[in-house]
Every structure is written in structure tokens, then in C-alpha cells.
């Protein structure tokens, strides 16, 4: 499977060498190991966008203790692997969310809480909330419920960990592949109110810096 190589920390030349010397198998094992480590250590930046923010403190503190699964909160998106978006997103928030997401380092994942990020939920006809978050940034796991209990959130973590462990193709790969699609969508809702540097693809400056 192609996505298996995406998790590699080895460059392609090394990969070729490994394949030539018949060590592709070893490489696959290493790949699996790395994926396992990734699944065991998830740094979370918890973005309290909506009402679901209230569910996150119990998830991370004594009662439910997400840390036992290696899920730890961090302050900056630079260090985070996962962003939790907890509920409806106003356009204004979306701008920050996109910015935060883009600042996270690959591989990176998105979990959303509640129904609003799926289809708008009770804000389905609001003039300033987005309806389907997946149009703007790729969501890996939806945790449904209004609001989801910490148990559900933890289930979401477990699901994500499984997917990472299996090396399944994740949202960030889709984002990279279909960047134009996402950027167009973002531009459509945010229009002229976006930051001047919004269009800059910070990680592909050598490509002209334009998405």
C-alpha cells in the first residue's frame, strides 16, 4: 500500500538501497514500529471551538486520564500531532483553526466533537458557522454526540490510534494531495476577510508560496 511509505522517516534513496539489498522487509517492519510509536504518543492541541470544550478537561484529568494512552496536551501547534475541534466553528474561528492546523507538523490528525462539524448541527442555517468541516480541513475522526461524553472522546482516540497503527491514509495526506480543493473552499467562505498571508503555503515556499 502506498500510504505505508508515507510514514517513513527514511529518504527515498535509502529506501531504494534497502529494496535493492532485499531489505524492504526490514523497512516495512521499521515502518510498522514507527507507526506503533506514533500511535502510542499523541500530543494534542485542544481547540475549544464550541460547547464541547467542556468535555475535554475531564478527558485529560484524573477521572478519565487520557495520558495513560499516551495522549498529552501541549500548548503550541508546533509540537502537536492532533488537534481536537470541539463543536461548531464560526467563520472567524475557522480562520484560526486553519492557521493552527497548517502550523502543525506532519503527520497530523484532526478529531472533531459533536455533530456541528459534521453537518452544521443545530446551526445548520446559521449565517456565520460552517456546515461541513471536512470541506475546509480534513477530519480524521468524528466523535458524535451533542455533546460526546469523555468515554466517546476516548473511543475516538482509540480509533485514531488504531488507524495510525495500521498505517492507514490520514487526513493530512488528503490535504496535501487536494490542497487546491481545500484552499478554494476556504477562500469561498472566508472571502476577502482572510489574512493577507493566508494564501501562503508556508511549507512550500519554494513553489512560489501560493496554494
Amino acid at each position, binding site marked *: 500500500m502506498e500510504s505505508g511509505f508515507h510514514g517513513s*522517516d527514511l529518504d527515498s534513496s535509502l529506501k531504494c538501497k534497502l529494496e535493492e539489498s532485499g531489505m524492504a522487509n526490514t523497512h516495512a517492519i521499521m515502518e510498522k514500529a514507527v507507526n506503533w*510509536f506514533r500511535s*502510542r*504518543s499523541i500530543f494534542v492541541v485542544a481547540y475549544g471551538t464550541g460547547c464541547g470544550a467542556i468535555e475535554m478537561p475531564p478527558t485529560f484529568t484524573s477521572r478519565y*486520564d487520557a*495520558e495513560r494512552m499516551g495522549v498529552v496536551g501541549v*500548548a503550541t501547534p*508546533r*509540537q502537536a500531532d492532533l488537534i481536537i475541534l470541539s463543536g461548531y466553528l464560526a467563520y472567524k474561528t475557522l480562520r484560526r483553526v486553519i492557521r493552527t492546523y497548517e502550523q502543525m*507538523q506532519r503527520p497530523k490528525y484532526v478529531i472533531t466533537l459533536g455533530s456541528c462539524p459534521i453537518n452544521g448541527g443545530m446551526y445548520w442555517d446559521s449565517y456565520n458557522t460552517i456546515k461541513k468541516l471536512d470541506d475546509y480541513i480534513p477530519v480524521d475522526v468524528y466523535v458524535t454526540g451533542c455533546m460526546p461524553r469523555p468515554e466517546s472522546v476516548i473511543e475516538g482516540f482509540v480509533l485514531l490510534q488504531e488507524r495510525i497503527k495500521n498505517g492507514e491514509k490520514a487526513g493530512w495526506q488528503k490535504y496535501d494531495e487536494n490542497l487546491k480543493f481545500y484552499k478554494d473552499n476556504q477562500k469561498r467562505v472566508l472571502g476577502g476577510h482572510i489574512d493577507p498571508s493566508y494564501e501562503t503555503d508556508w511549507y512550500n515556499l519554494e513553489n512560489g508560496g501560493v496554494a
Partner: protein
Amino acid sequence: MIFQIILLIMLAYVVGFIYFGLYRNILARIQGRYGPTIYQSFYDSIKLFSKKNTVNYGWMFYLGPIIMATGAVLTLILVPVFSDSDFLRSATSQGNLFVLLYLMVLGPLGNALAVGTGGNPFGVMGVVRGLTRLIGLELPFYIAVVGLIIAANSSDIVHIIDMQKTGGLNIINHPLLFIAAMISMVGFFGESPFDIPGAPQEVYSGPRTEFSGKFLALLMSQGSLFAFAKLVLIIDLFLGGADSLWMLVLKTLAIFVTIIFIGVVYGRYKVEQAVDFLMKIPTLIALLGLARVIWFG
């Protein structure tokens, strides 16, 4: 010697990470949680090393964590691990306590350059907090160290260890100095109430704000090396060093756990409160200990 150095670094790496995992576990238990596995820090570090991309603001940003790691490794190889055998004593004879005191600051200062290059104001805020805290933190520690140096009339750590074999442990001879040094150590380990520089709630995790991927992993690894070096230094200075591996583990663990226990029960000081406090009570304790050294032996 090179083999010993490599062995030492590996030992410190493993022990440091396991201690850190232990720390997280103890913290969790105190907070009524289950806590991560003891190897969690390994997982974190390997994951960070295998991140697919890493932000880099330029060569100074790149070199900063490396300077910091170099400082930690240098500190490590200059501390004698075992008191009796020459095993793992690697480069101890090439330096002395003053070299160590300064090397302990060299790394952070190098990293501060990288933080400054990163251009994130929160990072610099953290650095400034750290350096300001250092004013207070170093004072009791310096007094304690100077007290020991004057008592032993030598700045050679091996000599200080040897002194303790005949004259009794420094923790018993100079308890006040030990207390002062331990209070400073709480700060050096970044524990509450002195965990001001990297406060995530206030300054967006401070100096580490912009570090990600392999740089963050490097910082974490050097942190574990450095923590081990500091622990060994403390047991060398006050507990007569260790003559076997289990003794080493026991003593360092005792010190480490003490520090953790102090750390978990306190809230966080503001930077000026911390410096004010450190300049008063621990300094006073240390000065009393020093006076005892100078006038009563």
C-alpha cells in the same frame, strides 16, 4: 575512554528517560490518575524523531538545540559516576566543579540564541524568565557549592568524594548546604514552584514554543541526559557518590523522588516572587551553612 563515554551517554539516556517516565507516573498517582507507561518518554522521543517535517528558522535555530545537547553531554562526561572505580569516570580529571557550574548554563544560553532566532516573542519571554530566575536559583546553589569547595579546599569533584569517605557524608556534615542546594535543584529540574520559564498557560510553553520534530526530540533527550548528570552531581557532592550501579540508582532515585515530591505540592511562583524567595530563605540557610564551614570546620 571513548567507549566509556558512549556507554555513559547510553546509560544516562536510558536512566534519564526511565526516571522521567517514573516522574510522570508518580505525578499521576498523586493526582489520582493511572498515568502513562514508564516508557512513555521513549515513545514520545521516537515519535518526535520520526516526524515528517520540522520548522526551522535558519542555521542558528538549527544549532541551538545542538549546542544545548553538547553542553549536556559535556556536563555528563565531567561528572564522576562511580566513586571507587575508574569505570565511567571518563573525562572527570579534565575539569572541575567550576567548569561544571558554567557548563550547566552554557547549553541553555545556546538554546536561548535559537529561541531568539525563532522570533517568537513567547519563546523569548520564556528565556528572559529563565535567565531572571537563574539569578535567584544560582545564589543558594553557588553558596552551597562554595561551602563544599572551601570545606574540601578543592574544586575537584573526585577529591570531594574522597573527602566524604573519611570524613563522613556531606549531607550529615553540612545539612544546611544540602537543603539549600536541594531547593535550587527543584528549580534546575524545572519543578514547581520554580517552573516559570516554560509555563504553557502563561508564555505558550516558553522557549520550546517553536521547536518541533527532531529538535524537540533532541531537547527532550538532552534533558534526560542533563537530569541524570545533575542527579549524579548532587550525590557526588553530598552523598559520597555511588560505588555500585544499584547504589547509584538508589541514591539518584532518592534525590529525584524528593525533588518530585517537593515539586508536585506547590503552585507556580511569579518570577519576581521566585527570585525574592530564593534570595531570602534558601540563601539564608546556605549562608548559615557556609558560616559553619568557615568558622567551625
